[in-house]
């Protein structure tokens, strides 16, 4: 058994030693998030501010196609607010009597408006880069919220001798460090209505909170349900074990 242990330890150590070689040379910030631990919930005020940033900045290029306006109740907007917001957005609305595509105001049941009709149009308008849909972006990147935060705050002057391609921008967190997206947020890009300071850090934090919610809108309900279910199951395990002990009490084994 001792050989076994040392072998296991050796295999484990080998894994640890080899790990740095695999990691890419990117700076991954480590932020504190309201939603990260097993009991965490979304900071709704931050998510609402983040939604404001999405609406004013991100939505010019990025779609959020798997969300509907009604989903915004999840970050604490009420029915009237959602209706009012949707009414201000123009979305495709079927065809008119001549069979021509027509547009109309969105309703809470509408999908979020996409800025480009298709990916070719998106690429043409963005120097060949297609702005990814943001519905799942937090789940779709290694590092999740920290990675997105890192991209938003990672713009800097390239180091000496680093050649940045035409129409590309240097970013500390982006793999390869050359990104199509120009710096979207700076200090003071968006004016908050609730008096929160609008530093780059604060804005990045807020929009990442919003996008994390957008990617996992069920997370709070899920975790709260999970606490109750796991507690119940642990109790049931204890009970079942007691029953098993009782059943087996008359057997020598």
């Amino acid at each position, binding site marked *: 058994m001792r050989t*076994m242990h040392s072998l296991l330890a050796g295999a484990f150590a080998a894994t640890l030693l080899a790990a740095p070689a695999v990691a890419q040379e990117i700076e991954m910030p480590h932020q504190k998030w309201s939603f990260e631990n097993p009991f965490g919930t979304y900071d709704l005020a931050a998510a609402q501010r983040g939604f404001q940033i999405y609406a004013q900045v991100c939505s010019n290029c990025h779609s959020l196609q*798997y969300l509907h306006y009604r989903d915004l109740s999840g970050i604490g907007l009420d029915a009237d607010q959602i209706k009012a917001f949707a009414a201000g957005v123009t979305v495709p609305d079927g065809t008119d009597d001549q069979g021509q595509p027509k547009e109309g105001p969105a309703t809470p049941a509408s999908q979020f408006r996409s800025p480009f009709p298709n990916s070719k149009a998106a690429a043409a308008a963005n120097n060949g880069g297609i702005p*990814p849909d943001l519905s799942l972006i937090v789940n779709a990147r290694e590092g999740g919220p920290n990675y997105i935060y890192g991209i938003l705050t990672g713009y800097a002057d390239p180091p000496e001798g680093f050649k940045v391609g035409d129409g590309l921008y240097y970013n500390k967190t982006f793999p390869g460090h050359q990104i199509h997206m120009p710096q979207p947020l700076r200090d003071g890009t968006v004016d908050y209505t609730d008096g929160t300071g609008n530093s780059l850090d604060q804005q990045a934090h807020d929009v990442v909170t919003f996008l994390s919610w957008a990617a996992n809108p069920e997370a709070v309900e899920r975790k709260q349900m999970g*606490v109750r279910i796991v507690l119940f*199951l642990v109790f049931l395990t204890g009970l079942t074990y007691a*029953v098993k002990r009782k059943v087996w009490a008359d*057997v020598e084994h």
Partner: protein
Amino acid sequence: MVGLHKSEFANPVINWIDTRLPVFTMIQKEYGEFPTPKNFNYFWNFGALAMINLVIMIATGIFLAMNYQPNSELAFGSIQHIMRDVNYGWLLRYIHQNGASMFFIVTYIHIFRGLYYGSYKAPRELLWMLGVVILIIMMATAFMGYVLPWGQMSYWGATVITNLFSAFPVVGPKIVTLLWGGFSVDNPTLNRFYSLHYLLPFLLVGVIFLHVVALHLTGSNNPLGIDVKSPQDTLPFHPYYTAKDSVGICVFLVVLSVLVFFAPNYLGDPNNFIPANPLQTPADIVPEWYFLPYYAILRSVPDKLTGVCLMFGSILVLFVLPWLDTSKVRSARFRPLYRITLLLWVVAVVVLGVCGANKPQGIWVLLSRAGTLYYFAQFLVIMPILGKLERPLPLPESISHPVIGGRGGGPLPSGAAAKPMEKA
């Protein structure tokens, strides 16, 4: 035998049915009174756990299928529809997704149990081989299921794995075209994988039924690996093992729940949240964790055909295991050397898994070669030779002897073993 069954059930309705179709008698016999060795440890929970797991997968899968669209244009979006709009769709999907991982955890432990306690040896060879068939069907089902969300890893995983068949001479490319339903992974591939993903679990139910029938004919093995000698060695399945299995099922549900509710995507790959894009290959194509050891075996040799043969061989070799092991002693408890080699084999599998998750370069190539070598050496060299060389520890006379005689306990009166068993 022609004629009505003589039922012993008192309830007239049950009796009436049982006389004509003795299912109640069968259940009573196979799950009520079924004589089961009294010395099982908790490793013997895992067969029941796998069964429960399959039921969970089929139940959640049926409801997912009601809301899923097997079309390359719609599949990814329909999963998001399930996650966001279907009532408790996220719960169904996360149970199904993590249930697949749990199914492999449970099955791998079940297989380890078989290897450690020699459950594959006579007279249980066919029982074991049916188990290997179950494993293969499970793998095919899991692989096709992973393709259905039509994310980047679904698409590229499917491309890599189906392409493996092209390594076979002459028929290889034809097999690949047949699997794809065309000349690349595309909508027809998704359609046929969906169809098969729905079909195979029911095939699994059939083979599992045979697996259980075979088990109930030979009777269960046990941690001592010796045959049942008298009724004193056994207990009726109910209530003893229904109670013991229930404990395991509860613990299993706790683990599954922790995954589902607190870390539903922990075992997944971020790339699968990106819709499939045939024009963009992900930096790293890795299969789900439960396939990583086989993936490492595949990549351990530079030649594609050899790699493919080794990969399939790593499963197929299990079929002949009952004849590769030359030792008559079943349980590793009495085989000190075999025990060490088997635990080393487990280490090799874990190392292979880690290798499979890393790019095949540098130390990982070396480690995956060493792992592959040991994986096969264990079955093809060590087990045939060890059975002849090893001197096993003395076996106990019967299951109840060491149990009643005390295992590590104080001395008991020598007459204890002769005491008539108290009827439960």
